């Protein structure tokens, strides 16, 4: 039987669903323009994060064990809502500029967030899979939102085909795990784990699960789609995809691998560590060669997936905390960076090349400063958010006897400094000869303000943030 608690624990999901239905209704009735949908979406996301905030100190399973709400999932809901708000703020100027501002964007955005929240609070492999599919469907369509542009079509189609392929792996993995455990419930799997963790069937299921989720987080060797999709998709969507999408997928990975499977020290952990090392090396090295900023950040996101995987491979509560903290840092930083790129991008899709940023500080000193802040944070320079994330993740890896992985991480971080700082060099130490770009509109300024402030806050007060999702630590 359903009780009041069930609904209370799933409140963020309900508020999101109600909001999106409201937007669909107003869109269908043509009551408001796309702006009204944007307003509704942001309001709904604010309400959702408020409700999730109320759930921060609650924990329990709801809907017959289908979802589990706790501090971590509520915290991630807030983070995802924040990513949604920033994306919604940036989306209007971006699409209006291109004459492609449509209410459907917000519908799909909110649906994607529903899927992500489901992933972050999944307590059953079925819920997890449905959440992933819900998110992916929306992202496939969003990647080709301006459907008259060939590049976006290519991006959407590539993402869709490869994503469907990955989903098949994921589903097969779930089926095999169900076959060896006899249940899809994560609690039941956790109870049975000790007895079956060496069963070939179960290991095979886990491997397929890793393939499926590895695709969603763009870890090497399942990263091939990322550069093309990230470059082709509308920049606002890329930003959302790279941050919220990755956060939700990593939350799911952390929940399954650390909380359910307890992989610490096992072969699975070693496999994940290998994937992590490969992602760090490949992502960072290839990013150096990129001249397009979107493409560069795509490879950088592959590298960041590597750092995050190091936290998962540690397999400890510390690693779990590290992953969540890193996700926070990565999300706020990358969202801001993509907001800047979206502002700088011209309607003909030019202006994303590194050369276009030459001497930006002379024209728009504030924006250049904010962008520099993001780049410092992505490199992992203290006292910004990125540093804290890396610190916690590598710490967890060292404590879990994965010192070599932490060393690889630190070394590749040093490599990454080259291409992140190159952006700053371009902006500050070269003469401007390009066109003058007017200041971004107010919503973009607000978005930049929020993300920049959070980059500093998370960097300075990590323990406060940690307290939010890990009350015990």
């Amino acid at each position, binding site marked *: 039987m359903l009780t009041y608690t069930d609904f209370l624990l799933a409140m963020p999901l309900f508020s999101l669903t109600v909001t999106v239905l409201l937007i*669909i209704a107003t869109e269908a009735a043509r009551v408001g323009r796309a702006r009204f949908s944007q307003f509704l979406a942001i309001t709904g996301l604010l309400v959702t994060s408020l409700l999730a905030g109320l759930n921060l100190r609650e924990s329990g399973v709801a809907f017959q064990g289908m979802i589990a709400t706790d501090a971590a999932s509520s915290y991630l809901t807030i983070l995802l809502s924040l990513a949604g708000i920033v994306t919604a703020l940036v989306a209007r100027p971006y699409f209006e500029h291109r004459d492609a501002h449509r209410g*459907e964007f917000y519908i*799909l955005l909110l649906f994607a967030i529903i899927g992500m929240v489901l992933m972050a609070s999944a307590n059953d492999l079925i819920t997890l899979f*449905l959440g992933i599919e*819900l998110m992916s469907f929306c992202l496939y369509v969003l990647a080709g939102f301006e459907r008259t542009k060939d590049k976006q079509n290519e991006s959407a189609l590539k993402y869709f085909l490869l994503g469907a392929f990955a989903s098949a792996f994921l589903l097969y993995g779930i089926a095999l795990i169900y076959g060896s455990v006899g249940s899809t419930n994560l609690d039941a799997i956790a109870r049975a784990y000790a007895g079956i963790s060496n069963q070939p069937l179960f290991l095979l299921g886990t491997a397929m699960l890793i393939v499926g989720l590895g695709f969603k987080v763009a870890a090497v060797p399942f990263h091939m789609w990322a550069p093309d999709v990230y470059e082709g998709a509308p920049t606002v969507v890329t930003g959302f995809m790279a941050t919220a999408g990755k956060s939700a997928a990593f939350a799911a990975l952390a929940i399954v691998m650390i909380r359910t499977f307890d992989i610490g020290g096992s072969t699975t952990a070693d496999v994940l560590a290998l994937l992590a090392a490969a992602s760090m090396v490949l992502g960072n090295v290839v990013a150096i060669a990129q001249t397009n900023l979107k493409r560069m950040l795509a490879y950088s996101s592959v590298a960041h997936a590597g750092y995050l995987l190091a936290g998962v491979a540690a397999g400890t509560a510390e690693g779990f905390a590290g992953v969540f903290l890193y996700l926070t840092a990565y999300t706020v930083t990358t969202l801001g960076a993509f907001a800047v790129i979206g502002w700088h991008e011209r309607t003909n899709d030019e202006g994303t090349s590194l050369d276009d940023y030459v001497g930006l500080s002379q024209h728009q000193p504030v924006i250049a400063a904010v962008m520099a802040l993001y780049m410092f944070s992505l490199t992992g320079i203290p006292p910004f958010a990125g540093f804290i994330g890396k610190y916690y993740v590598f710490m967890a890896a060292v404590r879990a006897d994965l010192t070599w992985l932490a060393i690889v991480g630190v070394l590749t971080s040093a490599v990454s400094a080259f291409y992140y700082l190159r952006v700053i060099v371009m902006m500050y130490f070269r003469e401007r000869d390009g066109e003058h770009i007017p200041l971004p509109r107010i919503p973009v300024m607000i978005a930049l303000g929020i993300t920049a402030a959070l980059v500093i806050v998370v960097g300075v007060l990590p323990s406060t943030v940690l307290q939010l999702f890990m009350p015990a630590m």
Partner: protein
Amino acid sequence: MDLYTISFYMFAVLLLGSAIVVVFSRNIVRAAFALMITLLSIAAFYVLMMADFVGIVQLLLYVGGILVLILFGVMLTNRQISVDIREGAIQTIPAVIVTSTIGGILAGAIWSTAWPMREAARSVAATAPVIGEMFLTTYLLPFEVASVLLLVALVGAALIARRERKS
């Protein structure tokens, strides 16, 4: 061998044979037809396992719905039915290696697993009421999420396929 075993092996051969045709056929229409036989055999498997509801739904959705869409796609995009849809030999060898490795691992895992055996239900009990009840109790949330998923597919399809609005 009783009728049950005979039909099991018959459908197994049909399933595998038609699946092989799907993969290897050079003719895209023939591949689509073979896929129809594959899907029908899967429906037959469900029925053999006394999951009549799932079997019929398989028929209704895959054979009656999805495959029609595939055929539509084939018919509208290509008039030449003998188009070669296969890649050259450069792709073949790695593909063979990868698939045989995965297949070998899968077969090994399936072979070495001690499957919990259970006497097959030989009586036809109506499964639809049980499934319906489960959807509204234990699996209420996934059921509703699945409907949300369909709504998303609808919105997305409408977005991609709509007529361009004149501004």
